[in-house]
């Protein structure tokens, strides 16, 4: 892998982490409302507890936004330094890799070790937590394969 490809994969992975965090925060925390940031510790069963969870959701979204901004900056810096064409497949793979990485790390840390929340809070630790991790592993595999394919196609040209 050349330095250019490595920078592309790094920028894509960081962006993927940020975007994966936003999928979690927007879909699970806000639209479906099946858990909040600390809903295993402070159940969302009253206005007070909802607002407390909302505060910690806000901190989570702040860090997710900063990670996304870092990914955009890395990508912009790469675009400034190079004039060559970049592999879309490798970049897409890196996005998937970052998203998968988010699922695996956040799933293990927040759902199982720190006991912050679970995917479907009313069920506690459930099959959905395992599915969350499994989806992350699938994304890691798909992302890794796409990066490998994109990098080899680009290098062989």
């Amino acid at each position, binding site marked *: 892998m*050349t*330095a*250019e490809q*490595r920078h592309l*994969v*790094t920028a894509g*992975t*960081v962006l993927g*982490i940020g975007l994966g965090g936003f999928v979690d925060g927007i879909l699970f925390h806000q639209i479906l409302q099946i858990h909040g*940031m*600390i809903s295993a*510790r*402070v159940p969302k069963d009253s*206005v*007070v*507890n909802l*607002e*407390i969870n909302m*505060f*910690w959701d806000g*901190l*989570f979204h702040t*860090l997710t936004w900063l*990670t996304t901004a*870092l990914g955009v900056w890395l990508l912009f810096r790469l675009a400034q*330094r*190079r*004039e*060559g064409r970049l592999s879309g497949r490798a970049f897409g793979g890196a996005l998937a890799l*970052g998203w998968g*990485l*988010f699922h695996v*790390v*956040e799933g293990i*840390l*927040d759902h199982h070790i*720190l006991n*912050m929340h679970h995917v479907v809070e009313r069920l506690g630790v459930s099959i959905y937590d395992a599915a969350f991790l499994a989806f992350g592993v699938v994304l890691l595999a798909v992302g890794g394969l796409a990066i490998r394919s994109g990098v080899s196609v680009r*290098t062989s040209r």
Partner: protein
Amino acid sequence: MKKNLWIPSACVSLLASTTVWACPFCHTATGVAIHAGIFDGPFLATALATAAPFPVLLGVVAAFHFGWHPAAWMRNRARHDRPCNPTAHNVPGNTDDR
């Protein structure tokens, strides 16, 4: 007043106005309970737990980028800081980093 001072002055005026601070929850029993729930509990521990995945994730990405071994990390950092040769990547068959 200079034209470029209008924006910060307007912002300060808006933030100083009472309507900004007219939070319907803040001065009620509910607001006090929310404030206590956030700040009177284990605030630092919860903040650290909320932030915990991000340094781990960025650490993994940094390890992928610079290498897992500290020596490889230093070598790649040094290579990373070296000035870029703008024509190197246009040479056919060149897969050198810079």
